[in-house]
């Protein structure tokens, strides 16, 4: 089904407008529309492909209304790391159901920032074709609304390196590299691999920096206090500072 036809089908659905409005009330995040019976077979796979986006990372999910495949959706999404909660206000993925007036071919599309995003080219073309080939026409519209603002942790772009309390440089997290820094009190070796930075070796006494998990989210940091050494992940932050 062409994307424009898809939208026509959606907006022709009875009661769709208030429901769509409701799906947007708690945020302006992306909304995924899926026409398919047994949506549990498709939704986790689509979300999995979208996981490069911070808003599609696993979190808490909730239903906004009764869904005929609620149990199955809950099971399949839970297996993929989503935790279901009863309160929509505590969820970052809101699921709702709307029956279509006329049965339509199985398909999906994403609306983000008021625009239609063709997500078929994001590794989903095979799924799209498969749905169209084998799926029977369906009146089941599943609306998955992602609450973008509920994901204050975004993957970082670069890591800033501070040694002896002074900023030395910023390294892209896209690079895979290992680098050694000499400080007044010793040496620290860091590694960047698969978008994550960590301390690989340090001459400090207690090696607390070595046991710190790799950092990849904007705002995360790894500290080696004896060397006054700091790795700070840079990127769009949703908070001014952090406690804990």
């Amino acid at each position, binding site marked *: 089904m062409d994307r424009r036809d898809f939208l026509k089908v959606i907006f022709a659905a009875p009661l769709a407008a208030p429901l769509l409005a409701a799906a947007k009330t708690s945020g302006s995040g992306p909304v995924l529309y899926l026409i398919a019976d047994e949506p549990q077979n498709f939704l986790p796979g689509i979300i999995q492909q979208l996981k490069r986006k911070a808003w599609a990372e696993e979190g808490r999910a909730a239903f906004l209304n009764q869904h005929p495949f609620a149990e199955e959706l809950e099971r399949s999404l839970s297996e993929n790391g989503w935790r279901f909660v009863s309160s929509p206000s*505590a969820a970052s993925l809101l699921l709702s159901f709307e029956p279509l007036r006329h049965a339509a071919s199985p398909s999906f599309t994403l609306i983000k920032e008021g625009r239609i995003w063709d997500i078929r080219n994001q590794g989903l073309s095979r799924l799209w074709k498969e749905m169209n080939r084998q799926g029977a026409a369906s009146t089941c519209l599943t609306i998955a609304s992602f609450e973008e603002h509920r994901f*204050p942790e975004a993957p970082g772009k670069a890591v800033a390196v501070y040694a002896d309390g002074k900023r030395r440089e910023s390294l892209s997290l896209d690079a895979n590299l290992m680098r050694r820094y000499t400080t007044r009190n010793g040496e620290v070796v860091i590694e960047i691999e698969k978008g994550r930075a960590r301390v690989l070796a340090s001459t400090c006494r207690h090696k607390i920096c070595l046991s710190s998990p790799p950092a990849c989210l904007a705002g995360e940091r790894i500290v080696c206090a004896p060397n006054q050494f700091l790795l700070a992940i840079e990127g769009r932050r949703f908070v*001014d*500072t952090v406690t*804990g």
Partner: protein
Amino acid sequence: MSIPLLDKSKFIIFIFSVLFMVNCRGGEKWQSYTLFFFDTVCDIQVFGPLSQVEAVPTEISRIFTEIEKEFSLGCGDFSSPPVLELFRTARRVYRDSDGYFDITVGPLSELWGFSTKTYRIPLPEEVKKALAFVGLEKIKEQRDRLSVQPGMKLDWGGIAKGWGVDLAARALREIGIARGFINCGGDLYCWGENPENKAWKIGIKHPRQQGYMGIISVSGLAVATSGDYQRYFESGGARYHHIFNPKTGYPAQGKQSVTIVGPETVYCDALSTALFASLQPELIIKRYPEYGAILVEADGNVVILGKAYPVELF
């Protein structure tokens, strides 16, 4: 409305000039600093007149260096005015928390290896022996001097950092820093508005996952967190952390983290430890009506106690 090309470029220059003036209003600017004190990173972001902003790292270093000197583990000068002042604050929280906040847990920190990072699980008789030197009521204040029994060791780690943040924030405001925050390893004070002219957004670190469990939006307030994930070791599948129940001599059970919000960092710092260790945290927070707490229990359940502050949990 269409703007002729020349006018457009003038207009753009005007806009940049206005933005510059807004950002450097009367020679004011935002500046961030990263310093190392108290065995952790201290993040500072301030807004104020240029010369005052440039004086910030020197001013903060002066205050924090002094506090580090006075309050290192087992410090000996029990007659210095800062030690006496902070002791009185610690004693108040000790009494209000029914002894769950106790700066005399130094022998326990040593016994479990937290002061030297040579961790070990002590024998029950060793714990019992160490407990003989724990208990703030054993310290007497006589003629402006603390009388500390031999074998006792004061651990100021649960209160001195917060006090330092308060002193530094006060000093910066006095020299004309109108907006900013000082964050020493999660103990922080923020005042004025953030660079977006809103309340400061403080992320609360998730005690078990990467990222945050919520965001507090505050200004003119302090925030501090104690958690079992900050300093710990694992043995036999169990986690042994640095926040002791001063009554048992063992790491306190039942919580993953406690975040306190309130007017003074020194109390947020001490109360986060007290509520973490206590079995009845609601009784303690009742005695501090200006303070609020966000507790993450051992099973991950989140409980909010005391004064309500704007917090969004995920």
